[in-house]
């Protein structure tokens, strides 16, 4: 008896240690090459470059496939690809910049981060590299624009990832709608949503999220209304286009009743996965989840929910070079980037759309999956986060206002006025 107790004690201690250790397990750099990264970095060998990327999700293996393909295709250069977990990514980048050590030679950076890093003068301008192995015209102009600040190009675009529209084909059929025909504009969207809603069965046309991914949805509708969140050095949260966008989203819940009230974090995703939400908007990164759930869904560009124009909010992945990098490695870097530009089809398999014309204009790309071509269709009219320092601090009051208005806890105008005041204050400092 005494013995078993001791063993039980030891067992639970081990269990506890294991669980606690597992909690802290996902920090630090994962070296995909298996070798020890410390020695490889900072080596004077100009034929070997280190690449960092935040692709710790299902997208990681596709990037690895591209890098492996490059390493196998020639003998001159080697790319050492390292995945840093997404939640730790910019923390690691910042610490490397701050300590001026362990910096990768090349790293993947989101478009909305480039402005901040460029302002702090830690990114190398790529203007002088354009024209030989890599040229601007090889990429979609919006991809280049998303990686530029004041005419200086800081990144070579890998992809552009705008908001996407998804719908449940089975629910469309049941509601008497054409399952191959997504709505094209606001009128159709509301009409379809009403046809799909069956409140008694807890079934809805379009579930309006109150938190993430409103960071993509709300700016999309504002842009479609012909408005901007930031213009002439000031936030524009009380402009007509912004107010109308929020009122429209709110009307889906309160006036048209095609969305349930009080949707919580990820509540709209749960309902879509359960087949209880007919339409849904989210980013291309959701592909894996939809596929695993087995729902019969379709994917299309976001319909024009605003009143003025086509438009969609997007972010992007770009390759950037730190300013402190070794200039002798530029040959290797441009050689690799030129290869990626021509061979990024594997990246499309993750559901993303590469910004390189050689890929998204190719026939193989049209057949790679259902989603990626729909992503690329929106390239011509994407809009990115404005080039403002501390934009994150300005958007969080806006997202609070969207949250409170959609939860019916604050008047639209009142909430936006408060956000306008908070955001201006945050940007002034």
């Amino acid at each position, binding site marked *: 008896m005494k013995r078993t107790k001791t063993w039980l004690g030891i067992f639970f201690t081990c269990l*506890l240690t294991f*669980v606690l250790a597992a909690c802290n397990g996902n920090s630090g750099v994962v070296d995909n090459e298996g070798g020890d990264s410390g020695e490889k970095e900072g080596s004077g060998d100009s034929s070997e470059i280190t690449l960092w990327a935040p692709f710790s999700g299902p997208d990681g293996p596709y990037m690895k496939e591209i890098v492996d393909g490059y390493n196998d295709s020639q003998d001159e250069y080697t790319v050492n690809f390292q995945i840093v977990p997404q939640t730790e990514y910019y923390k690691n980048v910042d610490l490397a910049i701050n300590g001026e050590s362990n910096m990768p030679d090349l790293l993947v950076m989101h478009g909305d981060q480039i402005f901040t890093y460029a302002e702090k003068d830690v990114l190398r301008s790529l203007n002088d590299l354009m024209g030989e192995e890599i040229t601007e015209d090889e990429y979609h102009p919006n991809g280049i624009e998303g990686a530029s600040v004041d005419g200086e190009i800081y990144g070579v675009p890998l992809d552009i990832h705008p908001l996407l529209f998804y719908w449940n084909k089975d629910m469309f059929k049941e509601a008497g709608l054409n399952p191959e025909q997504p709505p094209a504009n606001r009128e159709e969207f509301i009409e379809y949503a009403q046809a799909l809603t069956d409140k008694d069965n807890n079934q809805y046309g379009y579930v309006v999220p109150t938190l993430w991914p409103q960071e993509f949805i709300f700016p999309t509708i504002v842009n479609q209304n012909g408005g901007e969140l930031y213009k002439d050095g000031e936030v524009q949260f009380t402009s007509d286009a912004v107010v109308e966008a929020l009122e429209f989203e709110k009307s889906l819940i309160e006036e048209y009743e095609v969305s349930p009230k009080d*949707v*919580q974090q990820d509540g709209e995703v*749960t309902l879509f996965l359960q087949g209880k939400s007919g339409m849904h908007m989210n980013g291309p990164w959701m592909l894996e989840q939809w596929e695993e759930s087995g729902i019969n869904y379709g994917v299309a560009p976001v319909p024009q929910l605003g009143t003025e124009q086509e438009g969609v909010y997007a972010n992007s992945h770009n390759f950037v070079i730190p300013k402190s990098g070794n200039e002798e490695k530029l040959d290797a870097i441009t050689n690799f980037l030129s290869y990626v530009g021509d061979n990024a089809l594997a990246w499309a398999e993750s559901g993303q759309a590469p910004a390189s014309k050689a890929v998204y204009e190719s026939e193989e790309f049209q057949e790679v999956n259902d989603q990626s071509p729909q992503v690329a269709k929106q390239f011509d009219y994407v809009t990115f986060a404005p080039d403002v320092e501390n934009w994150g601090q300005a958007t969080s009051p806006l997202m*609070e206002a969207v949250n409170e208005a959609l939860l019916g806890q*604050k008047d639209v105008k009142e909430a936006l006025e408060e956000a306008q005041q908070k955001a201006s204050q945050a940007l002034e400092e």
Partner: protein
Amino acid sequence: MEEARLPMSKAKRDRRSKLTSFLFVLPYLAMFLAFLFFPLVYGIYISLNDYNLLSKEHPFIGFANYTRIFNPDSAMNALFFEGLWNTIKFVVFSVPLLVIIGLALALLLNSLPGRIRGLFRTIYFIPYAISVSVISIIFLWILDTNSGLLNNFLMSLGFDPVPWLTRQPFAWISLVGATVWWTLGFNMIIFINALNEVPEDLYEASSIDGASAWQKFIHITLPSIRPIMLFVVITSTIASFNVYGQPYLMTRGGPGDSTEVLLMGIVDLAFEQRELGMASAMALLMSLIMIGVSIVQFKISNRNQEGRKAR
């Protein structure tokens, strides 16, 4: 053998025993210096600089970060004090429950027969060993307004769905409830040990005097476990002050910013805005407040004890 018996001078013996004691403390001291003291001093230094992680220069600005926090026109003022107020709300709601329910469970388990006691002790302790992300996901699924387990159950009984995470006061109730379920086991285990330390003869003597169960609890159990009670209250308060994961993962600080606790603001400032100087200043102020609260709790407890002795 012979040598050991030689009488050592008193001074020498003292020095020797001090050295031995010091050696025992040394590993802890080294850890303390490396992982607590040094970061603390460095944190104080950073808080006196305009320290943006990406800037090449971090100019010394004295107490400017602190004066900005106390300047009502600054966005930092709102960020700090609104966050602090939300954190204090969480502390006030959760600490009494963590202490009272922890003690109640300990009493309940102690009155169970031996074998079952061990089983239930383990069961109640297991949640404490799970990480906050897992706890939050479990509760997100249970509490979902439109497709959660709890609301499905309530609706099948004919009630309206409750917006557990999107409306006050339910958001606080949910966060406190999840926290209590998660961390209760720790307090319970400590209370069980404390209860086992209470001398059995006190209970026997009081039984002979005809004391009721309630009287025994008030006059024997509570005074005997007072030091442990103080420990539990202080550790629970500190843990609740440090609340971060539950609101970050379950409500994202919503509805609005009503559950945006101070640590969420500080972490955002440090790692999203990269303003380490300001974030350090806020973190230091927060620890000063926590130290202050602990001292007050200590004083109140001591005064009560002295009052009792005088009586």
